């Protein structure tokens, strides 16, 4: 068809419409999904003529929107793990590092001069340089990030569904939930769920009016780790089996609304709670954490996934109207993302009421620090629950397309293959929700693993190889990029020691 179209183009003048390929013979541009594992996922309008129609503002917003997502919930915890000052520095430095690697990703495609790379995305570039090893490894890492994200989603959805259910139940039955967990005694309660059990957030709160059998029954049937994850199965497993999830990508706006609402919520709480900051540099005190802690790699692990957009940045920037502004727009988008993370992290950390509660109480999901009776966080949980329920099938579809497409060559071989894959994914989510609902942990492991390939190794390695092919490799560049690769490896290895 290619040859045919070239030849026909030679036969007629540009004004003549007779030999221009009509739409039905040109293969349709495939469904193009843009996603960041913990951010949003949606279908992108791909332009076949080559030039996109999005202004810089739209492009910047789309990059910001795609990256923003549930990783926001773990940023305050990450800052707590790293220490306040260290946390801020780490966020800024990781932003810069991932921005540079993203820039390398964008430039990598243009450095291939021998082939027509107009429709290529980053895995195609990897395949070009590393052959089928590159293809398989990029598939593997991409799946790690997707499945990690889906497990996190399941844990969070169970959490939010549980809290929502509890709020509604308590609201209907006018129960004043007097938790025995540590909490502040004012109109903006903040709780510390893990105070009693040292580590794992306890999933069932004890209510002392246990004589009420109705509540007891509710407690048994509505348990965060024992029952709610299973209820979600009935809700979401059917949705995963859809052939085409384009219906769900229409709800993309929920993601933006959720993030904006979270920003508002954090600001509101900060205004009401005030700032509680004390600077102790190395020694932890009863209520505060030191400014510099050696657990900061936990934050870098989380941030690798928080700043992750390297798998689809090429596609996002392709639709930019003024291609020469690509780098500038990318930088602006990353600055905005960094600022958003900094804002939320700093505000939640700083406004956490430290005299009664220790900063160590900041949960891996900072909404867990608000009791289920808090209205504002209830609304936040509802938003996020709905948003996650619409993104979950999309992520499942993407995992399915990548895995089944490469193994079987067909993205929907039969209902059995798809069902088994979905059961595995859902099963993993349920198991994690029951036994290890630490989203911070899951995020940092999968983030460091996936980021190792896409953020640190591939961009740097490809740059080194292409420079070497053009004989432009110099020692400073080589050392710098090898250093980046080592950083990525260290990032992954050190997660296991924390």
């Amino acid at each position: 068809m290619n040859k045919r179209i070239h030849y026909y183009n030679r036969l007629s003048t540009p004004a003549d419409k007779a030999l221009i390929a009509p739409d039905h013979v040109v293969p349709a541009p495939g469904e193009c999904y843009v996603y960041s594992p913990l951010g949003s996922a949606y279908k992108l309008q791909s332009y076949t003529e080559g030039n996109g129609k999005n202004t810089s503002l739209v492009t910047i917003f789309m990059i910001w929107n795609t990256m923003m997502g549930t990783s926001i919930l773990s940023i305050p915890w990450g800052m707590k793990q790293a220490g306040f000052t260290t946390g801020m520095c780490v966020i800024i430095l990781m932003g810069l590092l991932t921005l540079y690697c993203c820039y390398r990703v964008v430039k990598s495609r243009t450095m291939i001069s021998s082939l027509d790379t107009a429709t290529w995305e980053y895995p195609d570039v990897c395949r070009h340089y590393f052959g089928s090893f590159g293809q398989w490894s990029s598939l593997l890492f991409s799946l790690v990030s997707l499945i990690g994200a889906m497990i996190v989603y399941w844990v969070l959805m169970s959490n939010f569904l549980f809290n929502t259910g509890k709020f509604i139940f308590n609201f209907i039955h006018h129960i004043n939930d007097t938790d025995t967990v540590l909490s502040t005694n004012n109109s903006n309660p903040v709780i510390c769920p893990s105070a009693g059990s040292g580590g794992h957030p306890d999933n069932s709160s004890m209510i002392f009016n246990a004589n009420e059998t109705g509540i007891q029954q509710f407690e048994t049937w509505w348990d965060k780790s024992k029952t709610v994850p299973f209820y979600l199965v009935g809700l979401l497993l059917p949705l995963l089996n859809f052939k085409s999830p384009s219906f769900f990508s229409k709800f993309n706006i929920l993601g933006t609304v959720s993030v904006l609402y979270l920003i508002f919520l954090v600001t509101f709480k900060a205004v009401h709670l005030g700032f509680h900051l004390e600077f102790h540099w190395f020694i932890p005190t009863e209520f505060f954490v030191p400014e510099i802690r050696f657990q900061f790699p936990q934050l870098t692990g989380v941030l690798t996934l928080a700043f992750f957009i390297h798998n689809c940045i090429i596609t996002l920037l392709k639709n930019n109207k003024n291609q020469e502004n690509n780098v500038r727009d990318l930088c602006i988008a990353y600055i905005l993302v960094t600022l958003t993370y900094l804002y939320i992290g700093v505000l939640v950390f700083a406004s956490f009421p430290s005299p009664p509660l220790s900063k160590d109480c900041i949960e891996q999901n900072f909404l867990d620090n608000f009791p289920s009776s808090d209205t504002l966080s209830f609304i936040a949980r509802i938003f996020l629950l709905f948003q996650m329920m619409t993104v979950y099938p999309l992520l499942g579809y993407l995992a399915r397309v990548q895995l089944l497409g490469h193994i079987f060559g067909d993205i929907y071989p039969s209902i059995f293959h798809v069902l088994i894959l979905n059961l595995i994914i859902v099963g993993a989510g349920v198991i994690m929700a029951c036994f290890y609902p630490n989203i911070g942990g899951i995020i940092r492991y999968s983030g460091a693993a996936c980021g190792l390939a896409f953020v640190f190794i591939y961009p740097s390695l490809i740059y080194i190889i292409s420079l070497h092919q053009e004989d432009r490799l110099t020692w400073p560049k080589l050392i710098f990029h090898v250093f980046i690769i080592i950083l990525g490896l260290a990032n992954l290895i050190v997660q296991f020691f924390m």
Partner: protein
Amino acid sequence: MKKKVLLMGKSGSGKTSMRSIIFANYIARDTRRLGATIDVEHSHVRFLGNLVLNLWDCGGQDTFMENYFTSQRDNIFRNVEVLIYVFDVESRELEKDMHYYQSCLEAILQNSPDAKIFCLVHKMDLVQEDQRDLIFKEREEDLRRLSRPLECACFRTSIWDETLYKAWSSIVYQLIPNVQQLEMNLRNFAQIIEADEVLLFERATFLVISHYQCREQRDVHRFEKISNIIKQFKLSCSKLAASFQSMEVRNSNFAAFIDIFTSNTYVMVVMSDPSIPSAATLINIRNARKHFEKLERVDGPKHSLLMR
């Protein structure tokens, strides 16, 4: 008296595009005409020897019937070697189309009863894929029935897939009288020079007349692709007032030679042993050329297709 190939069909059925694509002519003007003029285009393309291609618009207006079918009918339909009639599969006036077709057939019967008749059901890409076979079979039956006592061969075509090239190749194949003998000689030639594949192209259109391959090739559409590439190259040459004569393509895996063969054909020889020097193959081709030209001349004056 030059023999004619008539390319006829309703206005807008795709004849001019078809002709441009097959013969690598630039499209003369917009095929969608505003007025009611009925046009004939003579193109002095030497097609298969001494055939001249005439392109006629049939129908659309009643003036066609009056003017041409009555007054100039004999002029048009005399000395016709081939009639290729193009039907637009999307046409809404099937009755009228068939009516005009029948009038043409009557005229052919009267003036050139020996002409070969081909019907192309064109623009098949506009039909849904699962219905194409069905619709084509229906049309074919109707046309066969209508054409009696004349025989017509039907093809379904579209300029957006390989069916157009295949249909015209089949037409050319049927127009060559001694094609089996040609193929046998081609096979001998190929085996002697140890070629992987030898193709014989018609000179003006690069339609494949016959070919020999010693093993299965991966790409079934390679004939059309080669034809399109060479025609594109010829267009570029003509811009420089140069004309394409021969080509050699060589890399570490194969060597291909495209060269003038007889007065009406081109040959393409593909050798997968790149160690054989070009000169050897070119000498072989030159010697074969003499033999094949003799073959052409052997045919009597009746089968004048490949003769000067």
